[in-house]
């Protein structure tokens, strides 16, 4: 998992969405294409939002199939391409894919853990026209401690950071925070200063896929969040003009849901390693999805004509309290996947909303995390790491 799968994507599309919003009356376009090139990953992050049964996916789209997806999406107005995974660096054709995407006019974003990256590769990507590299730090507390303690991995990160800078890329770092590492925000930010980061995103784990499975073990305490936010603000002040720090507040501690994906199938299109097209990267888990595949249908047919993509567009699908809510155009009722995971009905309000009759589920989940954290360490549930073995075991493959 390299961050894209579990950082708040609404910020990313928010910037596109708001720019579009000002213009008004736009036709709905898949402005953002997230290409999950592969589920292969050298890491095993327990907060990954890849599906639990990822080990089931054997066949990835070929180079030609991906380029065809890029072409179609570009023709429909897509400008931003996220190359993600899994770890996209494990695709041997990555340079070829970047070259093709850039030639088509995409703004190309590589979202990587940096594991497997070296100065030579960064220079190759630059030559291929890659626009932006975002390095996600896995930062489970052990990794983070290793990094801060100055292991080989830390040296590797420093060298890679230098290579990124030497190739005139802004240094964009993303840390996914959770209970096990959120107390180290100051150490994380010191590390970012040392790496001369230009942008840092502190994104709280969102509970999908593996992260949902590990929710009790990852849920931060309220006091931790207060502390982390204060620390982030202090660094924001100190680093003004040098390093921009984005701090994303976790939705489980909010009273209103996130405007997930800027609305269902509104600006965002995910294509998974096997070619399944989704309105968001967690949507595979929803009931009744037909999961159209780019091998069988054109992107145009999928985007405009498929049941999946039309399912939660607009407001007609909504139930109360969303249906009559005066904030529905602001947050679209929150996240469909979260509504389904927690309430069993994807048309319900996202229970993060305090107006939802199911809001107690969020409070209970927070309480369960707190109770788990209060147990003696040996009695606490172990984190389940995202790897093929656990995937097969949990999914009964």
């Amino acid at each position: 998992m390299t961050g894209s799968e579990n950082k708040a994507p609404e910020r990313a599309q928010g910037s596109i969405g708001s720019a579009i919003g000002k213009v008004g009356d736009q036709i709905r376009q898949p402005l953002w294409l997230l290409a999950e090139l592969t589920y292969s990953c050298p890491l095993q992050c327990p907060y990954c939002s890849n599906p639990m049964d990822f080990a089931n996916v054997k066949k990835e789209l070929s180079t030609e199939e991906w380029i065809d997806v890029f072409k179609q999406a570009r023709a429909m107005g897509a400008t931003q391409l996220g190359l993600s995974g899994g770890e996209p660096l494990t695709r041997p054709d990555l340079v070829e894919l970047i070259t093709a995407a850039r030639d088509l006019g995409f703004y190309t974003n590589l979202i990587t853990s940096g594991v497997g990256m070296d100065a030579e590769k960064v220079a190759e990507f630059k030559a291929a026209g890659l626009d932006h590299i975002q390095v996600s730090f896995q930062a489970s507390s052990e990794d983070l401690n290793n990094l801060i303690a100055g292991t080989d991995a830390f040296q590797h990160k420093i060298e890679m950071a230098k290579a990124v800078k030497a190739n005139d890329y802004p240094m964009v770092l993303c840390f996914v925070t959770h209970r096990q590492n959120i107390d180290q925000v100051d150490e994380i930010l010191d590390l970012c200063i040392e790496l001369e980061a230009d942008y840092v995103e502190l994104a709280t784990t969102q509970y999908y896929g593996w992260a949902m499975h590990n929710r009790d073990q990852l849920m931060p305490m309220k006091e931790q969040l207060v502390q982390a936010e204060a620390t982030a603000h202090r660094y924001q002040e100190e680093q003004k003009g040098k390093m921009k720090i984005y701090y994303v507040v976790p939705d489980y501690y909010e009273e209103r849901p996130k405007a997930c994906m800027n609305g269902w199938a509104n600006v965002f299109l995910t294509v998974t390693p096997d070619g399944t097209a989704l309105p968001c990267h967690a949507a595979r888990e929803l009931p009744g999805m037909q999961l159209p595949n780019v091998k069988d249908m054109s992107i145009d047919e999928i985007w405009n004509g498929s049941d999946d993509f039309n399912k939660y567009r607009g407001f007609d699908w909504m139930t109360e309290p969303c249906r009559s809510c005066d904030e529905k155009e602001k947050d679209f009722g929150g996240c469909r996947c979260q509504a389904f995971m927690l309430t069993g009905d994807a048309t319900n309000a996202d229970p993060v909303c305090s107006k939802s009759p199911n809001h107690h589920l969020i409070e209970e989940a927070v309480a369960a995390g707190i109770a788990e954290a209060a147990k003696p360490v040996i009695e606490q549930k172990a984190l389940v790491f995202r790897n093929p073995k656990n995937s097969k075991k949990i999914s009964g493959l």
Partner: protein
Amino acid sequence: MSEREFNDDTVPMLAQGYRFQWEPAQNCNVLLYPEGMVKLNGGAGEILKLISEKQQTVAEHIAELAAAFNGADLADDVYRFLDEAYSNDWLRK
């Protein structure tokens, strides 16, 4: 004048990671940056197009724009836009 970020001799450049391009699907000029896009109106598009194509001073940009727009006096508009663009982190000096 002294409060302005740019003067006649500064050479404005797009900020690191920013790219200017024409988008047929949007029918307008846009500025692309990491994970985002700004749609530009006509004037903003003309100025940023020039900045993205030519490394030259603000005075030279103004002269070139004036020539393209029938000798209109665009200096104030250009400076106002440059300030705004700079405060949005679209430009570097």
